[in-house]
């Protein structure tokens, strides 16, 4: 499937799915309140969608990620969240910790 999409089309799709939001952001600066109902709704949808994306990568992973069992992916996710909270909400240790844990457990299987 990936080979059948022309390069230019793919790059254009990437552009039109993000840039209009940035331009609208400039357009609405000073015209619209950030606490506008539509913006709060849109942000909630966007957050829920990214949360759903995480779940799809975990439960229905691409082939190379799916070589390891589901429970290991869930453990990595939980472990990263735990480190994030314990390490004073820093992202770097959370990512590094989950990476190392995933690697160690997958090698000892």
């Amino acid at each position, binding site marked *: 499937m990936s080979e059948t999409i022309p390069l230019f089309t793919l790059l254009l799709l990437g552009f039109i799915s993000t840039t209009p939001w940035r331009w609208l*952001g400039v357009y609405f600066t000073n015209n619209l309140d950030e606490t506008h109902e539509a913006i709060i709704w849109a942000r909630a949808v966007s957050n829920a*969608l990214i949360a759903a994306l995480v779940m799809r990568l975990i439960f229905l992973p691409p082939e190379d990620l799916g070589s390891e069992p589901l429970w290991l992916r869930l453990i990595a996710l939980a472990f990263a969240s735990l480190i994030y909270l314990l390490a004073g909400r820093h992202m770097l240790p959370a990512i590094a910790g989950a990476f190392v844990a995933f690697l160690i457990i997958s090698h000892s299987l």
Partner: protein
Amino acid sequence: MPAKLNATLKGAKGAFAPPGLVLMIAFFTFGAFAASLKFSLAAAIGLTITTFAIPSQIVLMDELSRGSTLLAATFAASLTAVRLLPLTMSLMPVLRGEKTKRPILYGLSQFNSITIWLQSLAAFKDMPRDQRIPYYLSLCLSLMMLNLLTTTAGFYAAHLLPQKLLAAALMITPVYFFVSLFGTTRTKADKLAFLFGTLLAIPLILIIPDLALLTAGVAGGSVAYYFGHYHPRRKAEGCQKDKQNEVPE
């Protein structure tokens, strides 16, 4: 002039602060992701240039590789990027100089993403207005250049790494998204959206894998908006009215 040059150097240095480093790791895994889904290096690099928002890039490639239509894939990628609107709205007033023209702001907004937003707002706190655009532009261009390299490195790494190491590297993508959502949601509506999106997605992925993202996003986000924002606010207004009614008595 030296002050502006100094701001430019600071911006380049800012690219190596923790948010920038995390972004580089994320773009590395995006490169590996693109290779693992059999996209070309040109597609991976090109998407980083035209899009520069990892969640949208991943959604787009993931949807397309699962055989979604171009419209559905773009729609899902676009909905993940709505967050750029409020981010840009809050950045522009502190970024612009007194004489900055609108067309320039449209151009500058092209690079805005959560990492750049975080890093810029932190740096702008004690920075004179005329130095902010040089700082911002230098930060954006540095991160763009560096991440073309990390995207490329990730792409080739996917072909070279042993399978278990590649799986661990790819796992960084969901971990990064999950923990950033975890860390950046402040309001009740956003927190509920994170929760409902996660919980709704699991059954939906198993029942309707192709439409799971859109349905979980729109339904989960809307319900979260209702219970996290709309309903509590209406209730608060209702209480205030009751109190106002009670006052005369």
